[in-house]
């Protein structure tokens, strides 16, 4: 369980995180979504005590991170996959961490095996690919067998096999009853991995809801219809819904707004209008996310208006 309690971080005038209040529950994967600069990383850094909140607090299992005498046994975090000393061997990096928290060294080899790095662990990190560093970072997070895990952009730099592996790992960790918080700006990734979403923009919480609910947020966008008799169809739909031509230019393709495929199909049946295609256009998480965050993106490219030119 991670508790964010009116958590705020200011850098001078800039508000990076703005009174964030939320609970991250165990037993499910919670996606932490937001555009770049939304405050995801800063929030995660405050949870593990790397950054000091300007106001509010972040608790892990009811404790401040810095009060945990053996933090790695409670919380595993992968925040920056580049944060290794290039001259140190992968295994030695983990040995130092194990020593610091009284974790038996046998566990080091166990997690190296787990992330598929056992054969290269004796090499210096400087020779690792980004994907290998990512795996070493995940090994470090798993080292203390913690009940709470935080991953910041955990699939960056991984190939498709690696992405699938991380996805399965996150799901499994959650299924074991652990608290899993994964930040990403990749909505498609979250749609496949997360059960629950925290969406933030400009440091403020926009959504705290199950993935399904976020997807259903705007319900059905439109119904797409294909009919050989578009004129009769439009007549049949009068008073029921708005009909527009579809964007493909084919006069037989139509979009119906403000209703559902069920209602359109039944109305067409009653009017005796033949339909060759009938489909709800659902929102993807991507659409929902864009809707939610467009107003809160910090860096938007806008066309420059030249006045008095």
């Amino acid at each position, binding site marked *: 369980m991670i508790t964010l309690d009116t958590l705020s971080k200011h850098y001078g005038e800039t508000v990076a995180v703005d009174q964030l209040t939320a609970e991250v529950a165990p037993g499910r994967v919670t996606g932490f979504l937001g555009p770049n600069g939304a405050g995801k990383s800063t929030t995660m850094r405050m949870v593990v*005590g790397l950054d000091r909140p300007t106001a509010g607090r972040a608790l892990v299992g009811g404790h401040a991170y810095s009060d*945990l005498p053996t933090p790695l046994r409670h919380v595993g975090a992968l925040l920056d996959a580049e944060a290794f000393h290039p001259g140190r061997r992968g295994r030695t990096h983990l040995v130092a961490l194990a020593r610091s*928290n009284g974790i038996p060294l046998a566990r080091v080899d166990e997690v190296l095996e787990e992330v598929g790095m056992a054969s290269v662990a004796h090499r210096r990190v400087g020779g690792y690919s980004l994907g290998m560093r990512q795996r070493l970072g995940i090994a470090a997070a798993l080292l203390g067998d913690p009940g709470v895990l935080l991953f910041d952009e955990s699939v960056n730099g991984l190939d498709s096999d690696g992405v699938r592996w991380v996805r399965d790992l996150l799901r499994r960790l959650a299924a074991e009853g652990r608290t899993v918080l994964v930040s990403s700006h990749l909505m498609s990734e979250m749609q496949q991995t997360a059960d629950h979403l925290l969406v933030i923009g400009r440091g403020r919480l926009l959504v705290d809801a199950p993935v399904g609910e976020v997807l259903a947020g705007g319900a059905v966008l439109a119904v797409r219809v294909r009919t050989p008799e578009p004129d009769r169809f439009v007549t049949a739909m009068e008073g029921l819904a708005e009909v527009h031509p579809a964007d493909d230019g084919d006069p037989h393709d139509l979009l119906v707004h403000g209703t559902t495929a069920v209602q359109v199909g039944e109305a067409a049946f009653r009017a005796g209008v033949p339909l060759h295609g009938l489909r709800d256009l659902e929102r993807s998480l991507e659409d929902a996310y864009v809707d939610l965050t467009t107003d809160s993106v910090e860096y938007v490219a806008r066309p420059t208006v030249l006045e008095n030119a």
Partner: protein
Amino acid sequence: MTTTLSPTRPGQAGARSDLAAPGTMTVLARAVAADAVRLRSLRSTWWSLAAGAAMMLALALAVGLDGEEVAPAWLAGEIGIVFAQFALLVPAMLLVTSDHATGTVQSTLLSVPRRGVLAVARLLVAVSSTVVAAVVLAAIADATAWVAMGQPADTTIGEVVASLGDVAIVMGVGTVLVVGTATVLRNAAGTLTAAFLGLLVLPAMLPEFGVPWLATIGESLPGAGTMSMLQAFGDPLLSTSRAVVVIVTWVVVAVVAATWSLVRRDA
């Protein structure tokens, strides 16, 4: 892929910490063990040690083979450490600055979030390793010079031990100052420059200008204190009591500044 993680139920982690919460001394001892691994595992540590050893031996031979005057052999270790201390300080400095330069400090702080404890652990690891290295190398340098001299001045075991003790003080104080400076500056070039100026160059140079206030500044710098502890340079710059005051003052400043910096600043 096999699962090697034991399932942790919600709340169980908290319960485990209540049952077996280690005390501060255990946390400190573990932090020391971790930093010792970090220090040992870098090649730069061993190269710096090798460079320091080469410097000490070369100076010991120079002292030993200089037939002009009869000198006690322990002079070799003292003269050697004045210069070789900078090679031995490099690993202590890198323990801190490379952590910041590479971002490894993140994982260090994740594993030991109690920053005061981390600061103490860093100092213990750095000081104990540089002091042991310095004393061993000085002893080897003394022995080398003694052999090379053929006819060394009479000396007692007590004088040699006292000389090695002075070497330990010089090295230990230098290490505390360098680790403190490195923790505040988080930067290797700045730290090394400050160490050179404060421990050697300015205290040796400023009194030479004959300007009283410049001399006062020079005599207040940490190097004036540490070099006055050595017998190698004849008349020391400062009396022993003044040297101790200068040294203690700087050590306290360094420890307080480093701890404050580590505890208060974001990583």
